[in-house]
């Protein structure tokens, strides 16, 4: 018995990747998100950033504040294109509310937990903020700082969460399982039993990414599809292309490529081009370069999303709270649409840069397209 436990521990340590996947494999959450994907959202038609799934609302009358207000935003950082687009959304949304909003103070933690805690403490002690928006760098790490802030002013959290229910609301799209379900089911529907899929992932240990993979992996296992490899690319195009080339050179037949984020999808496809092979079935995301390639090469593809329009929602929620209006809560779950072949054309905008996220919900915002790097 002891021997077996020891052996199991050793195996677990050696194949930590698998142990990791288990931690992010929650069947209840999987089921919940699968239901949410097909739910009809409530709220204004055609404005997914203002919509929500489910019925929960929270009362915010006690936070009501008249006159001009100051919003403070503690950002984890702008270390990837998703966050760059998001921050532009947030700033543009704030511009829409000039009459109500006196100032939007944005501080950037450069991806450092320690700095973000200090940043939040400084914002709270500075006394200028009427409400605080937080996009946490790490869930657990930011919990105490957010708890301390909750005692002083209304807090709105979005993207990654915190381990406390003290914020007025936590804004997020359906989630990682939903992302993995959409992409996994599409690939499973296009492949036969026994076909091969290569999983390309950004990095291990990030909850919002791990859940995407665990959901897709479950679906592949169920459909009898063989995951030939799961590789981390660090969002690096050169590394992505090299990894795929190595798999091709090994003589593996790759029928589909599944990705937990689409920013290197075109690099993965180039590896097939350079090897003179046909394109695989692929799941990317809502980046312009991938959508254009999809259209021009007539790929069999899907673009699930983790929409950047949630950055708009954060400002809307903060102002609603200061107006004393009811807001969806304690979790504000946003719809999480996927781009499919029939709606592909309407998401392509040739003016936008290659890594622009099409589900930004920003087309009507002030400064479009220049603010987002378009021309």
């Amino acid at each position, binding site marked *: 018995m002891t021997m077996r436990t020891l052996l199991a521990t050793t195996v677990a340590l050696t194949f930590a990747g698998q142990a990791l996947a288990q931690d992010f494999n929650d069947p209840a959450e999987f089921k919940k998100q699968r239901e949410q994907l097909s739910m009809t959202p409530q709220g204004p038609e055609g404005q997914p950033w203002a919509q929500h799934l489910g019925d929960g609302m929270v009362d915010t009358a006690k936070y009501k504040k008249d006159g001009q207000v100051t919003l403070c935003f503690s950002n984890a*950082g*702008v270390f990837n294109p998703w966050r760059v687009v998001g921050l532009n959304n947030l700033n543009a949304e704030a511009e829409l509310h000039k009459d109500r909003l006196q100032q939007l103070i944005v501080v950037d933690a450069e991806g450092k*937990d*320690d700095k973000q805690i200090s940043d939040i403490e400084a914002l709270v002690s*500075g006394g200028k903020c009427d409400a605080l928006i937080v996009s946490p760098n790490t869930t657990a790490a930011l919990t105490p700082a957010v708890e301390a802030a909750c005692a002083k002013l209304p807090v709105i959290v979005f993207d990654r969460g915190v381990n406390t229910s003290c914020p007025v609301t936590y804004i997020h799209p359906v989630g990682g399982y939903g992302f993995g379900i959409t992409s996994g089911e599409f690939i499973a529907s296009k492949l036969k039993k026994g076909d091969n899929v290569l999983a390309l992932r950004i990095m291990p*240990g990030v909850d919002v990414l791990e859940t995407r993979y665990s959901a897709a992996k479950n679906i592949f296992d169920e459909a009898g599809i063989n995951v030939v490899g799961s590789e981390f690319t660090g969002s690096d195009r050169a590394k992505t292309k090299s990894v795929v080339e190595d798999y091709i050179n090994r003589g593996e037949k790759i029928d589909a490529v599944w990705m937990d984020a689409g920013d290197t999808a075109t690099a993965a496809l180039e590896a097939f081009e350079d090897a003179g092979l046909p394109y695989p079935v692929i799941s990317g995301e809502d980046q312009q370069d991938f959508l254009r390639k999809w259209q021009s090469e007539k790929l069999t593809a899907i673009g699930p999303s983790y929409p950047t329009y949630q950055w708009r929602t954060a400002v809307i929620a903060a102002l609603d709270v200061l107006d004393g209006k009811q807001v969806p809560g304690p979790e504000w779950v946003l719809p999480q649409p996927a781009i499919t072949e029939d709606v592909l054309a309407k998401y392509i905008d040739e003016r936008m840069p290659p890594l622009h996220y099409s589900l930004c919900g920003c087309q009507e915002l002030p400064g479009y397209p220049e603010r987002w790097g378009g021309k």
Partner: protein
Amino acid sequence: MTTNIAKPKPAIPDLPVAVLLAGLSIGFFAVVALVTGETAQLSGEGIAGLLQRMVALGLVALGQTFVILVGSIDLSVAALISAVAVLASHVMQGDPAMMLPAVLLCLGFCAVVGFVNGALVAYGGINPLIVTLGTGLIIQGVLAASFGVLQGAVAREFQVIAYGSVLGVPYSLLLLATLSLAAGFVLDRTLFGARIYAVGGNPDGARLAGIRTERVILSAHMVASLFAGAAGLYLAARLQSGTPWIGRDGIYDLESIAVTVIGGTILAGGKGGVAGTLAGVLLFATLDAGFNMLGIDAFLKQVLRGAIVIAAVAVHAVRTKGHVA
């Protein structure tokens, strides 16, 4: 022969650099706070918040000062910080009874890493950059690979280190102050400190004077690793649980070297000290806080920080006679 190494006077006076740098930093912070109307940042709470930004980097940099003084360098601190933070939260699992064992285990681990680094540098004769780059990679790899089974959180009681305070002074600041004084005392007033300056300033001379230079280098590496361990424990307390990337994301390796050199410690070894390093850390903390108040764009911040690092070192390095590489 032994007399002239007993009390080495730093050729560049340590204090003026430190005082000048600290003065400039505080002045910058005060002016920015006044100009932007953030006067609350000049209150006791604001200042405590500013100083708290120094703690993690300060602890690492104190240790880095020891290795740089002895003419070595340590790039493995970032990975070590992550390892300690993860290990501490894994061993504690929220149980206050496990606090002491966890701390001892972490510091023991640091001592081992420091010993390996030091031994490879001092006895193996391998360039310290390569040694510590290598050990850093090894630690980082093992850590990331086993993170799935190394989860947990530190005990609530342990978080007092990061969040508790006495008379408005956070414990973490007292910790940094105490360790700084201790490090300063060791360097200035003890035989070990004198040997560090001697070995860093002139290894051949030190050897001729009967100092076992290898031992001094090895000890300095152990000191650096233990200080990195202290930083890791502090971060674990502050972040509740460690992730295998907090050291790397915090860039504690390069930043600790930068603040040490900005503070007037010479990379070749033998000159410098704790006061300068702390002033360098204060500069970085005020830049962080000041840039926040000014609302400077994240990318522009990086540009400014790069230029400031060069300028801050150039100010005192330009007087160097002879060549540097």
